[in-house]
C-alpha cells in the first residue's frame, strides 16, 4: 500500500512536470508538432498521429471572424487544398463554447456546405491544442512536415485587408507547400499572422 502511494505521488509529480512542459511549447518552427486528438464537426475523431509521414496543414478558423470568413468565401484555402492533394488539410476551431462565436455542429455543418469546405474542421473546445501551437489569430496557419515538425507558422498571405487581387497576393502557405513538395523548406518559415484573435 505504501509503495503504491509513493508511486501515485511520483506519477502525479511527473504529470505536473509534463503538463508544464507542454504548456511552454508555442509552436516554433523546427520544433515537433504537438499531438492532438480532436472531434470534427461531423463527429469523426482525428489525431495528428494518424497522418504520420504526410505533410499536414493546420488552419485555425472561426466562421464569425471576417478574415476567416473572407478566405472561405474567396475559397483561398479550399483551392489550395485541392491543388495540393497530397497534403492533409485540417481546420481547427478553438473557440470557447461560452463565446458568442461558438457554432454548434449542426450550424457549422451548414456553413461548411454553404462555403464548399472540403476538409475536416475540428473542435478544440478546451483551447489546449490552440495554446500548444500558439495559435493567435483566425486564420493562423501551420505546416507540419513529413518528419512531424512545424515547418511554417504564420499568415496565409501578405494581404491582411484583402485589398490586392487574389493573383497578386503572396500565398505563404502555397509557397511553403511547393517547397515541401520539392524537398525544400518554406521560405519564409515564419510570418506575422493577421486576423481576429482566437476566442479562447
Amino acid at each position, binding site marked *: 500500500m505504501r509503495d503504491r502511494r509513493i508511486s501515485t505521488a511520483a506519477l502525479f509529480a511527473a504529470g*505536473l512536470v509534463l503538463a508544464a512542459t507542454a504548456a511552454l511549447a508555442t509552436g516554433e518552427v523546427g520544433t515537433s508538432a504537438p499531438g492532438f486528438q480532436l472531434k470534427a464537426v461531423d463527429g469523426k475523431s482525428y489525431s495528428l498521429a494518424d497522418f504520420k509521414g504526410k505533410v499536414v496543414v493546420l488552419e485555425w478558423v472561426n466562421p464569425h471572424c*471576417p478574415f476567416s470568413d473572407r478566405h472561405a468565401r474567396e475559397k483561398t484555402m479550399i483551392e489550395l487544398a485541392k491543388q495540393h492533394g497530397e497534403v492533409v488539410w485540417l481546420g481547427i476551431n478553438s473557440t470557447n463554447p461560452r*463565446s*458568442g462565436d461558438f457554432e454548434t455542429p449542426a450550424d457549422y455543418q451548414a456553413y461548411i456546405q454553404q462555403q464548399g469546405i472540403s476538409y475536416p474542421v475540428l473542435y478544440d473546445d478546451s483551447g489546449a491544442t490552440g495554446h500548444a501551437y500558439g495559435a493567435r489569430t483566425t486564420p493562423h496557419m501551420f505546416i507540419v512536415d513529413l518528419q512531424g515538425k512545424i515547418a511554417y507558422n504564420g499568415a496565409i498571405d501578405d494581404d491582411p485587408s484583402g485589398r490586392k487581387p487574389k493573383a497578386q497576393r503572396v500565398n505563404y502557405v502555397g509557397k511553403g507547400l511547393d517547397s515541401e513538395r520539392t524537398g525544400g523548406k518554406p521560405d519564409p518559415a515564419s510570418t506575422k499572422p*493577421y486576423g481576429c484573435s482566437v476566442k479562447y
Partner: protein
Amino acid sequence: MRAGPNRATRTKPESERPGHGFHAGETFARAPSGDCIGGRRSLRIETRIAGSAARAALAGLALAAGWLGAARPAAAVASPWISNPQSRVRLISGDLVAPQQGELRLGIHFRLAPGWHAYWKNSGDAGFAPVVTWKDVPGLAVPELLWPAPHRFELPGGLEAFGYSDEVVYPFRAATAPIGGRPTGGPAGRRTALRLGANVDYLVCAVDCVPYRYDLALDQPLGERAEADPRTGPLLDRWWRQVPLAAGRRPGPAGTPALASRAEMTLARSAAPGELRLTLRLPGVTAAPGGADLFFESHPALELGRPRARAADGGLLFEVPVRRKDTSMPLPATTAIAWTATGLKQDGLPTPLALAARQELAVPTADASAPASKPSAPGAETSPPGAGRTGPGRRVRGFLAAGDPRVVALAAVAAALLTLEAWGLLRLRPRRRTAAIADGAAPVRRSGRREAAGFLVLLVTLGLLYALSLEISAEGLAGVELALLAMSLVAWLRRRIERSGPARLLLAAALAACTILPPWLAGRNRLAADPAALRDASLAVGGGPFRSTTSTTAFDRRSFDA
C-alpha cells in the same frame, strides 16, 4: 445558423462585392462619391451661420482672403465624419492655411465606441495596423505616419493587442513644395488650395473585429504663411505630443531640446533552452502613475514577449523574454530591434514621456538549442581565461542553463509533495487512522527508513529552492517558499480532519492551488540574465563562446510645450 455580428457578410452574393475582400455596408464601407468634402464646403456642414449679416461678413472675409491669395475657411479644415456602429473617422488638417512651402500637419481622427480599439503599427497577437494610402498630389510629398504611444489590451486566452481606445489621431507629417505640376487655382503658378485624398483601411476590434475602408478628402487652403486651425490644431498638437521621442528626430512642431537620456539594451541567453532575454535600461526615468510599458515592432526572427518593468539603479529596467520563431535556422549575427517605451516619468516634465528607437544588436552565439551545432575537433577548442574555474554556483547555473525556472519550481513542488507523502501528511484516506484510533491501537508509526527518505527529498527541495534563488527575484523566492509552507500546512490540517466533507474538499483545492502557485511565481519573477554569469556558466558547462551584446542610444529629450 445563429446570426452573428458579421454573419451578413457571407450571405451576400458574389456580385455585391465592391472589389475588396470585405463587403460594403457591414464590414466594408465606402463614403459615397462627393460626400467627403472638407475645407470650404465643409463649412456648410460643420458650421451654422445664422443671419445675413454674418454671411455678408464672411463673404467679405473670403473676398479679402482671396485678394491676399489665400483661401481661409472660418472653421476646422476636416472631412466630414464617416460613421459606423464601432467608430467614426475623418481626415483633419492642423492648419487653417498651410504654407505654400513648408510643413503640413495632417491626421486621421478616430472616435471609437466603448470597448473597441484600433491598432498600433504592431497590432500585437491579432488584428492589423491601419493602412493609409494617399492620393498623389503635385507638390506634396507622401505624408509620413507618426504613431502615437500605444496601449496594451488584454484579450481572452492570454492574448494581447496594442493600440488605442476611445479616441486617437494618427498624425501625418507632410511637406508642401513649389510645384512643377499644375496649380490648383488662383493666379498662374500659385496654388490657393490642395485637394487631399486618403484611402483608410482599418480594423476595429473589441472581442470581435470589423474591418472598414473609406475614402476621405479635404481641400487644404494655402497661403504665404501657415495659420493654425483653432479647432483641429490643438487636437493634432495633443496627439503629436504623444508620438514617442526618437533619437535625432524632431517629432514635435514646437520641440526644444531639454534633457538627454541613454538607453541601454542587452540581448543575452536565458536559462530556458531556446530562449533569450532582452533587457532595456532607461536611466533617469521612473514609471508614470499609469505604469510604464514597452512595445516592439514585429521582428522577423524573434518573438518578443511580455515585458516586466521595475525600478533599478535610478532608472527603469525592462526585462523581456525572447523566443526564436524558427529553431531550425541559426540566428543572424546582428539584428535590429525597434522599441517604444511609454508611461515614463521624468522630473521637470508635466506629462508622461514616450521614447522610441531602433537599435542594432549582436545576437548571442552558441545557442544551446541550435540543432545544427557542430562538434568541435579534438584539440581545437580554445579556453578563455577562467574557463576551467568551476564552483557550486557556476555548476548550478550551468545546470539551470538547460532548464526553465518554472520547471525548477515545479520540480520543487513535486519534491515537497514527496516529502509530505513520506511523512504521511498526504494520506488520501483518513479512514485508517480513524479506524486505528477507534480500535484503541496506537497511530501507525512511520518507519525510520521512510522518514529518512523524507528528509533526503527535503534536501532535494532545498537544493531546488537554492537553484531557483539564482534565477528569480527575492520576492518571487519568498512567494514560492510561502506557497510550499502553505502546502505543508494545508496537508497537515487535512490530515487532522477525520471525516470526508466540504472542509476536506476545500483543503484539497487549497493544496492544488499551492502546487500551481510556485511555477507561476517563478515565471513572473524571473530575473534578467546576467551576461557575465551566463558567460561563466556557458564556459563551465562547455557551452562554447558566449557574447552578450549591448547597444546604447542617446536621446534628445524635448519639451513640447509651445
